[in-house]
């Protein structure tokens, strides 16, 4: 049921050639740009695993820094784990900033890069503390079966988080013309129009983006200000808008929660299993191990997560084409993602599996062409 899509069965995509779609220089620039980012990602994940493995091995020693009892000490160990993760990623974040600046993808300074995420890090500290309070309290009561009770709690928290996400970052209402477009497209997709907002991101990136957030009464589409800075035509922005509305009309936020719910139980069970040798999650010493297991599980499930995400993005692309009925604008938009945002149009398969939550640029162009052929 979760795999259902509004993309027609048996849709045949034309096979386009990168070299024919893009100029050689633009193609090479995008490929070079993304190649470095892929290497940066791989290196950062390897370091992450090594750091967490070391932490799982020796991290329990940090318990002596706590006077907080079982659960409080577990929280401290969880937060220290996150702190080490943050520290281990600093060189890669700096390298990424350097690369982005070199390719004119960002004006952010190095100091800004390091410290702009401190609020997010604080939120993560709070989140892991809350998660550990729940897990360790349940594990204290049900040492071997805590995971059965914990999974529904985490699903509830994830649902709450998805519900309030639209309120977690500052936005401005979009202009009247865009609002009118949103109403028109929402009507075409047979949904109530959600709130349409613009987030000013010009201070830290030039990359274009938009997203759908919330569900029920909190539904919202957010366009980044970089999408409205004159580099994209009106029709291209409309394509983006229709795409994001497609996520709402396809209930993709709730679908994502359902996917999460599907994996929450086995995930918590695996953590419970892996931490038994440290006495189980009722003991603070198990926390560093649980962090390692959690990260390994997340990395291991990346291909599946990305496949699910690409499936939804594909559907949103199709719905956008059906809404705007303008394949030229869609194609123009996707081409600019490569020429302006330097997205590699045809990345290697492993990169798609591990890194790409969207279909490749070439696939999206092929998709637009397939819609054009079908609609004739």
């Amino acid at each position, binding site marked *: 049921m979760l795999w259902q899509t509004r993309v027609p069965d048996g849709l045949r995509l034309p096979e386009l050639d990168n070299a024919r779609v893009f100029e050689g220089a633009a193609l090479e620039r995008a490929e070079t740009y993304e190649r470095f980012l892929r290497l940066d990602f791989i290196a950062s994940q390897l370091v992450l695993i090594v750091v967490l493995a070391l932490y799982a091995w020796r991290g329990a020693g940090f318990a002596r*820094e706590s006077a907080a009892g079982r659960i*409080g000490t577990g929280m401290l160990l969880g937060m220290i784990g996150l702190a080490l993760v943050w520290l281990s990623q600093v060189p890669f974040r700096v390298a990424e900033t350097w690369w982005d600046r070199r390719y004119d993808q960002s004006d952010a300074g190095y100091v800004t890069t390091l410290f702009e995420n401190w609020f997010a890090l604080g939120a993560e500290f709070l989140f892991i503390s809350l998660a550990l309070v729940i897990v360790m309290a349940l594990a204290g009561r049900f040492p071997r079966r805590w995971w059965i009770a914990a999974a529904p709690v985490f699903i509830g928290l994830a649902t709450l988080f998805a519900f309030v996400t639209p309120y977690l970052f500052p936005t401005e209402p979009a202009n009247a013309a865009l609002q009118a477009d949103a109403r028109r497209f929402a009507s075409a997709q047979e949904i109530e129009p959600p709130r349409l907002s613009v987030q000013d991101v010009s201070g830290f990136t030039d990359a274009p983006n938009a997203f759908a957030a919330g569900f029920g009464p909190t539904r919202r589409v957010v366009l980044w200000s970089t999408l409205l800075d004159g580099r994209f035509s009106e029709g291209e922005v409309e394509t983006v808008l229709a795409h994001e509305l497609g996520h709402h009309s396809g209930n993709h936020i709730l679908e994502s929660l359902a996917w999460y719910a599907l994996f929450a139980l086995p995930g918590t069970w695996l953590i419970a299993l892996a931490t038994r040798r440290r006495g189980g999650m009722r003991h603070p010493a198990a926390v560093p191990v649980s962090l390692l297991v959690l990260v390994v599980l997340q990395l291991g499930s990346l291909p599946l997560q990305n496949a699910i995400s690409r499936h939804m993005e594909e559907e949103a692309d199709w719905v956008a084409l059906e809404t705007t009925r303008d394949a030229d604008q869609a194609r123009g938009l996707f081409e600019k993602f490569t020429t302006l945002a330097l997205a590699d149009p045809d990345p290697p398969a492993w990169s798609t599996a591990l890194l790409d939550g969207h279909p490749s640029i070439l696939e999206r162009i092929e998709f637009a062409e397939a819609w054009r052929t079908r609609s004739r």
Partner: protein
Amino acid sequence: MDAPVRLVVTDDLRRSRLTVFFRLLLALPHFFWIVLWTIVVVPAAIICWFAALATGRPPTGLHRFLSAYIRYGAHLAAYLSLAANPYPGFTGEPGYPIDVELPEAAPQPRWKTALRLVLALPALLLAAVVGSGSIGGGGGGRGSGADESWGGFLFSGGGLLVVCAFLGWFATLALGRMPSGLRDLAAYGVGYSAQTSAYLLLVTDRYPSSDPDAAGPRWSLPPHAIGVEVDDDGRRSRLTVFFRLLLALPHFVWLTLWSVAAVLAALVNGIYTLVRGRSAAPLHRFLAAYVRYSAHVTAFATLVGNRFPGFTGAPGYAVDISIGAAERQSRWVTLFRTILVIPAFLVSGGLSAALAVVAFLGWFAALATGRMPEGLRRLGAIAVRYLAQTSAYWLIVTDDYPYASPALRAAYEPIEPAAELHGEAAA
């Protein structure tokens, strides 16, 4: 090791209401005088710096001149902050009720001399909070013109001295005496500022110590229902220091939630105490745990304590607050508690600023050395004690008024009045 700059307190707490009322106006000639003196001191200090760099010790004449200036600044600061009563002399001669003893000129390492201004920055920052931010030790330094031209221009914060002077002014006009806690706190501020000035002006190469016991008299601390117990070895984990504020976030959230409940409980406790003359035992326990917990969190967040505290306010933390059982409380004091606590809140504000500076400086020091400097730690613990006393008073845990003296633990030994000493000597 004895501190080369020592604070001497022989004040008897008595004040003349008339001179207190007109204190600022009476000090006007001193303002003009210190401006003139400072204009001379600046080039003198520069010459002294070159000479000390060349010869390895400050010239004796300049050293004496700068020492007199520091003493004079301390006298004036004490006079303005009401830490002392007599009108000070204009020459910085020793013998004032709040005085500083300064060392003779001695050899100083050249590298310390060369970097003096940079090295003095942390001390100046702290002096800006516990003193007035002026190098002359100066309470009221904000108004003292060129006195601000050194540290004061950098740090123009009001400081604890201003709070002490403000509160002391009202108290003295009412009582004819300066409250001893306020006097001691002001004297400490004068002493620390004098240490900083002496360091900056090359009178000594010993770095200022913020430990109130290191360079001061034996501070008084009367018996109080709320005390502080410090059992900390000064060692700090660099990792938890680096992320200290983030690590404290869960505690901040929990403390906020608990605060809401505590205020409601205090309201009920206040009504109960008005009727029965003592706190309800369960509410007393609840509020005592809250006071202890907020002290633990404050100590942890400001690096005064090292270990991650528990969430229940149970006793046993390295910087702990001792709270006795519920005792009888004055109904009058309970009825007017919210008004009576305002002066304590003002002092708490000043000490909180000091605590913030302690945490800021301690963060760098602990990251570099893996230890929290003793002076900062003790000053921080004193601030934590006072904040705990204030919240215990406000929340009707006790009717003992917060005591501002910069003491951690001491027997109550009031300093003998200077007049009586003189009288005995005469006899």
